[in-house]
C-alpha cells in the first residue's frame, strides 16, 4: 500500500537486528562473520573436513534420486531469501519484499527469489477454473481457458520487471543500508506465453479502441489502463516463468508482461482485458503510481522504467572482508527503452569513470551484468555505476533528478547510486554531491 517514502522517513526503529537465536547463531550485522563453520550438521569451529582429512560427505552415501522430487537450494544457502521491512506497511497482504540482488549471479532471477508486491495477498487459483475474458470494444467478446491460451502460438522473452517504487525510500536521503532494500524491487526472468496482439486479433479490436483495462483475479482485483499501441507492440500474456508455470506470487496461472514498463501494469492473475476509447483513471493510476511534482501537480501514466544500474559487489551486505587487493566490481544495469549500451564505474565518487565489461548477451529490456576489475588500496572509496542505454539516455545523479522532480514523487527514482567503502571494508549507502 505505501510506496510512500514519508512512511520511511520517520525515525521508527528498524526491524529486529540479526537474530541471535537462529541455528546459524550470532551473525554480526551485515553478515560479517563467516557462516560456513556454523552450517547445519557441522560442529562449530571444527575443521575436520578440511585437507588433509577426508570429508564426512566423501565417506558416506548421500540420498538418492527421489529424495527431492522438486529440488531446493542447498541448506547452506538458507540466507538467500526475499526480505521485507516490517515497518514499511500495515499488513503483509498489501506489502513488498525484495530480491536479494547481492546474492545473484548472471542476469536471471530464480523464480523463488523474485520480489513480491501484492495489494491483496496471493490468491490460490485453480487453473481449471481460471478464465480470461476479452471484451469491450471488440468484434467478438471471447472467453479462454488456460488450455486455450497455451494452444496459441507461443513466444519466450527474457525481461526485467521493476516496481516503479524501487528506491523510492531514498528520494529524501540514504536510508536503507543494503542493495536488497535500495534496489531489490526488480527481477529478470524468461517469460513464455502468447502475444497479447494475438489474443486481441482473435477478438477483433474495433478501430475506436485506444486503451485497454487489464484486471486481476486477486482480492485487489488489480486494474491498470494500457494504451493500445503498447498492447499491440510487445506485451505477452504469460503462463510460464523460467521454464515452468508461473509461481503463485508472480501471477499463477496467467499474468501480463508489459516489457520495460512499470511493474504495476503487468497485471498478475489476469482474468479480464477490456477494450475502450479512453483510460479508466482507476485508483492505481491516480491515487497511486502517479508522480507528485514540487508544484503539487502529479504526472499520470508515467509507464517507462528509465535506465538504472547498481553495484551489487561490493555492497553493505557484501563488505570487502578480504582487505586490500583485487576485487571484481559487479553490478546490474537495465533500461525500459531497450538495450544497455555502456556502464561506467567510478570508485572515487564520480571524478574518474571506466567503462565496465558487459556480459553477453545484452538483451533489450533485460538485466545486463557488468564487471570491472579493481585493485582496492584499502582506503575509503565511493563506488558508483552509471548506465547509458541505446537511446543515449544517461542515468542521472540524485541532484539532477531532485532539481527537476523534487523529493515527493515516490516513483521512478533511477539515480546513480553510491556505496561508501570504509577502510575496515564495511560498506554503507550514502548520498553524495
Amino acid at each position, binding site marked *: 500500500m505505501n510506496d510512500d517514502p514519508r*512512511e520511511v522517513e520517520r525515525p521508527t526503529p*528498524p526491524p529486529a*537486528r*540479526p*537474530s541471535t537465536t*537462529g541455528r546459524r547463531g550470532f551473525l554480526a*550485522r*551485515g553478515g560479517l562473520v563467516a557462516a560456513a563453520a556454523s552450517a547445519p550438521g557441522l560442529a562449530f569451529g571444527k575443521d575436520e573436513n578440511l585437507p588433509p582429512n577426508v570429508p564426512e560427505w566423501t565417506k558416506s552415501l548421500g540420498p538418492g534420486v527421489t529424495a527431492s522430487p522438486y529440488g531446493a537450494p542447498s541448506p547452506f544457502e538458507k*540466507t538467500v*531469501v526475499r*526480505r521485507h*521491512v516490517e515497518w514499511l506497511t*500495515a*499488513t503483509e*497482504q498489501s506489502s513488498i519484499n*525484495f530480491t536479494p540482488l547481492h546474492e545473484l549471479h548472471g542476469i536471471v532471477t530464480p523464480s523463488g527469489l523474485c520480489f513480491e508486491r501484492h495489494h*491483496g495477498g496471493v490468491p490460490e487459483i485453480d487453473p481449471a477454473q481460471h*478464465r480470461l*475474458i*476479452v*471484451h469491450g470494444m471488440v468484434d*467478438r467478446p*471471447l*472467453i*479462454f*481457458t488456460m488450455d486455450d491460451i497455451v*494452444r496459441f*502460438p507461443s513466444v519466450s522473452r527474457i525481461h526485467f520487471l521493476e516496481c516503479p517504487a524501487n528506491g523510492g525510500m531514498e528520494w529524501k*536521503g*540514504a*536510508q536503507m*543500508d*543494503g542493495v536488497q*532494500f535500495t534496489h531489490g524491487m526488480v527481477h529478470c526472468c524468461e517469460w513464455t506465453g502468447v502475444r497479447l496482439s494475438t489474443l486481441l486479433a*482473435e477478438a477483433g479490436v474495433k478501430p475506436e479502441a485506444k486503451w485497454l483495462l487489464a484486471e486481476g483475479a486477486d*482480492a*485487489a*482485483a488489480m486494474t491498470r489502463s494500457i494504451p493500445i499501441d503498447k498492447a499491440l507492440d510487445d506485451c505477452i500474456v504469460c503462463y510460464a516463468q523460467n521454464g515452468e508455470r508461473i509461481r503463485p506470487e508472480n501471477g499463477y496461472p496467467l499474468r501480463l508482461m508489459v516489457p520495460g514498463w512499470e511493474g504495476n501494469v503487468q497485471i498478475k492473475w489476469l482474468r*479480464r482485458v477490456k477494450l475502450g476509447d479512453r483510460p*479508466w*483513471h*482507476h*485508483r492505481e493510476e*491516480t*491515487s497511486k503510481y502517479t508522480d507528485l511534482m514540487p*508544484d*503539487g501537480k*502529479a*504526472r499520470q*501514466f508515467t*509507464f517507462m522504467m*528509465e535506465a538504472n544500474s547498481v553495484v551489487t559487489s561490493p555492497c*553493505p*551486505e557484501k563488505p570487502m572482508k578480504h582487505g586490500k587487493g583485487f576485487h571484481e566490481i559487479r553490478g546490474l544495469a537495465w533500461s525500459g527503452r531497450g538495450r544497455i549500451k555502456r556502464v*561506467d564505474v567510478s570508485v572515487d565518487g564520480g571524478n574518474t569513470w571506466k567503462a565496465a565489461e558487459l556480459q553477453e548477451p545484452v538483451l533489450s529490456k533485460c538485466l545486463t551484468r557488468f564487471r570491472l576489475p579493481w585493485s582496492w588500496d584499502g582506503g575509503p572509496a*565511493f563506488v558508483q555505476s552509471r548506465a*547509458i542505454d541505446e537511446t543515449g539516455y544517461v542515468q*542521472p545523479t540524485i541532484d539532477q533528478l531532485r532539481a*527537476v*522532480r523534487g523529493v515527493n514523487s515516490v516513483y521512478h527514482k533511477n539515480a546513480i547510486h553510491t556505496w561508501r567503502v570504509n577502510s575496515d571494508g564495511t560498506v554503507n549507502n550514502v548520498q553524495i554531491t
Partner: protein
Amino acid sequence: MSRSRNALALGLAALALLAATGVAAQTPARHGIGRAATAAEIRGWDIDVRGDDGLGLPPGKGTVEQGEKLYLQQCASCHGEFGEGNGRWPELMGGHGSLTSEDPRRTIGSFWPYAPGVFDYVRRTMPFTAPQSLSDDETYAIVAYMLNINDLLPAGAELDAAKLRAIRMPNRDGFLQGDPRPDVVAKGEPCMTNCRKEPVRVTSDLARKLGVTPNNRGN
C-alpha cells in the same frame, strides 16, 4: 531436357508459392481458439467503473447516514472513524493544501481527481478482508460517507450515479497528462576523467544509523 528444366523451374516457383502461403497459413489472423463469452459471463465480471465519467456505474443509491453506519462497522477499524487512518493503515480524508509541502498527504479529499473512481475502488476491493462483498446500494452509501467526511457532500445527502458524476473533486485538475520524460537529460557525452569540480561531500549518511541491512535470519 528443356521440358524437365521447365518443370523444375515451375516446381521451384510452386515451392516458393507454397512456402509463402505456408508461412501465412501458420500465422492466421484468427486461430479459432476460445469461444464467445456469454452476456451473463461478462456481466458477472464486468465490474469496472470509469473513474472520470462514471461509465459503468450501476443503478442504486445510498445516504450519508446509512454509509456512516456501514463504514463504522466495516471500515473504521483500519481507516479510523473519520477516515484519519489507524496506525499505518491508509487515511481517507484531509491533506488539503499539503501537496506542495514537505509531507504531502494524498487522500480522497486532497488528491483523488474523480469521485466515480472511489466507487470503482471500494466495490472491487474493500473492505480489505472481504472484497466484493458490498452491494451496490451499500457502496453508494459508504462512498457518500467518505465524501461527507471530506466536506464534498452534506450530511443529509443521498448519492446515486448522477450525483456521483456531478461531484467535482478538489484536485480535479491536479494531474499532468503525457509523460515528459526523459526530463533529466545529459548534455553532451558523459564525462570520464576529472569530472568533479569539488571534492566528494556526503549529503546523506542516515542509512548507517538506521541500520536497515538485510539480516541473515533466513526468514
